């Protein structure tokens, strides 16, 4: 739970009727986690300014949908999280991302470490309700350290926000908009990417869209992060 010397900064709020405490100004998704309640995220990176791109952390406040990664908690806020409606929204978003990309888990280097795959298991996705789009996307292998596989990109913006070179310049950025949107690599900075930053980029990607070149598997499928413990369980086991 929360440790702080200044109790004035502790506020009380409710998630699905359960009384929780948090530090004033904490984002809801983090405050919930501190109280043992898991709210799924794909685009969120703790410590970085949130973007609210994937919408999977949608919760209801006063009957209106909002994203838990972008909204700070305040005293007395009442949040709906574990309802049938929200479950359905989250499952729909997972299905949507599967249907609109080309995600073949068995052949993916990230299998077992992939948040999208892990959430699909959590929400018990069988077949997406949406028709598969089978989009034709490219694999950009022109950079010395990494491969950018657009088939698997869920456009969450994590790499764009987290990976900057030593001068703070963007290595990744969006290109175009709407259905033509993609995340591209800066040709110049991509060619100068350090091993360290390349590894960080692969790690920060919640799916398998950024893959290190000339690198095998350290951990076999079956023994990876979400193979060991289902996504969300580490938070939900907090209070047990």
């Amino acid at each position, binding site marked *: 739970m929360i440790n702080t010397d200044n109790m004035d900064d502790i506020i009380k709020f409710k998630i699905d009727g359960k009384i929780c405490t948090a530090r004033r100004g904490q984002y809801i998704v983090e405050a919930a986690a501190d109280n043992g309640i898991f709210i799924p995220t794909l685009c969120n990176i703790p410590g970085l300014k*949130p973007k609210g791109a994937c919408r999977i952390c949608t919760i209801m406040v006063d009957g209106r*949908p909002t994203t838990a990664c972008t909204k700070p908690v305040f005293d007395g806020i009442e949040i709906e999280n574990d309802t049938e409606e929200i479950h359905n929204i989250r499952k729909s978003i997972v299905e949507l991302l599967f249907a*609109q990309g080309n995600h073949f888990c068995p052949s993916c280097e990230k299998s077992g470490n992939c948040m999208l795959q892990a959430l699909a298991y959590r929400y018990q996705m069988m077949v997406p309700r949406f028709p598969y789009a089978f989009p034709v996307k490219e694999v950009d292998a022109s950079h010395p350290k990494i491969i950018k596989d657009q088939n698997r990109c*869920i456009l969450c*913006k994590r790499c764009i926000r987290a990976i900057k070179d030593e001068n703070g*310049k*963007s290595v990744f950025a*969006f290109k175009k908009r709407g*259905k033509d949107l993609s995340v591209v*690599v800066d040709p110049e900075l991509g060619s100068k990417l350090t091993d360290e930053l390349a590894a960080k980029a692969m790690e920060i990607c919640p799916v398998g869209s950024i893959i290190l070149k000339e690198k095998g598997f350290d951990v076999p499928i079956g023994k990876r992060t979400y193979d060991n413990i289902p996504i969300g369980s580490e938070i939900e086991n907090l209070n047990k």
Partner: protein
Amino acid sequence: MDAKVQEIIEKYNKDKSRLMDILIDIQSEIGYISKESVIQIAEQIDISRVDVEQTMSFYHFFTHTSPGKYSIFLNNSVVADMMGREGVRDTFEKEAGCKFGEVTEDGLIGLFDTACIGMNDQEPAAIINNIVFTKLTPFRVREIIRDIKAGKSVSDLFMESYYGGGMNSSDKLRAMVTNNIRKVGPILSRNYVSGTVIKEKLPQMSAEDVINEVKDSGIRGRGGAGFPTGLKWEFCRKAKGDKHYILCNADEGEPGTFKDRVILTEFPELLFEGIAVAAYAIGATEGLLYLRYEYKYMEDYLEDVLHKARANNLLGKNIGGITGFDFDIRIQFGAGAYVCGEESALIESAEGKRGEPRDRPPFPVEKGYLDQPTVINNVETLITTVKILNFGSEWYKSFGTKDSTGTKVLSISGDCKFPGIYEVEWGFSIRDMLDMVGASEVQAVQVGGPSGSLISPKDFDRVLCYSDLSTGGSMIIISDYRDILKDIVLNFMEFFIDESCGSCSTCREIPVIMTEKLKNIINGKGITKDIDDLLEWGELLKVSRCGLGHTAGNPILSSIKNFRHIYDEKVIRDLDYISEFDLKKATKESCDYVGRIPNI
């Protein structure tokens, strides 16, 4: 290194928050933004190339290669279609010798589709090298292409007799656009000498007095969202910041709205006064008019009005003789993106970035342009506040209804005798509106543009006001003989697909999937379950970040709600599943090759 590009970059002090201006100037002065220019900009303003590209590729009017010496952007809105766009389009292709989306081999002519350009009352219309050509016919197109091939300049493509009325015919504007002001109320009436409020009222009023008068009038944002204007000003004034900003939203991109075009043409002095009044109220020293690129033809004219306002002490230092009231306005152009009409996307764009809406909180009144407290008001809202301060809030409240005070300027187009702008009091019924504009045999009215709702005759006694039919003023009238799904709904859905910023998973993907289903239904391949799917999937859009996302399914959702029978008639009932797989088509190539007749 290109000297011209360098000059433009330096004109904006290598400031990355002015990237939009840099790109706009390069595009309009050189004709396109080459990959080399992108590298030069990136190096000079010290950001990576992909960051320049991500802004550039967001906007419709930026191109890496020349869009033709004469670039023709033909509006593809619903009303353009109604008024004969197809014939115009075909003639352009035939006469120019290239398809839409292409440039002729000699680089002379480029043909492109573009979303509503704010000329719905005089369609079909196109923008050729930033100049608007209205009421196009196949004959006019043949003339235009003939003259282009003969080497005439764009301004010589039309004769003086083509100038529209009012200020459109003035020296600085010289546009063939017509105003079509058909009903004048207290706001559009010429009952006011510009500058009066600044010179005679403000000296006796504190900022709080101004805010209270506006609050008391009950006016709400006229862009469509309807937030109380006085309250917005008050929040902003009270918010702490190094500087406060007022931004005027003149990015009217909702298909079917064109009222701001007319206000900007006929009442720019009133608008700039309104921006200054808002600045006085919130304590701003700098204001921006965020103007859609489609209205680039007004640039010289509006700059001239600003110049005169400075000369008359209505902008600049100690405005109206009020010590310390220093304020000025600059024009910030957009570059073709509907979503930039959303206020936080507008701010992002004005800062030189992609027009992606921001998450709220924080709201712009706390943290807006350059992270400072910012008010964003619609054009119509701002001119109205000047009249409110001049005549008083009681006068203003004598118009409209109790909870929707004042008037609304409507942009009415589609199947009617007299398209144009009409200022009506809130509380006006749709039936009266249809009689007013000369519309008969009306099947439906699109209230509030594609993001609004499609209503049927059973709703024609409903009235325009915030508690019933709330609207930013776009009214598209649809006659009996139109095919609602094919002519209207499909066009609107394609518009939303083109204009989504793509940031939210829902708004990026759901409209695409819904539109595929809609096409199946239109082509007679839909089943009853498809209608239920559309309703269910459309619901998901409500979790999107901004208004565009929330409403991107409305064309389908509201047409199912009010015209369910059309869908029911088109779908195949009593069928649980329809295979989209066509065996004959799939095996055609191999059958042709081996000369076999498929045994199906």
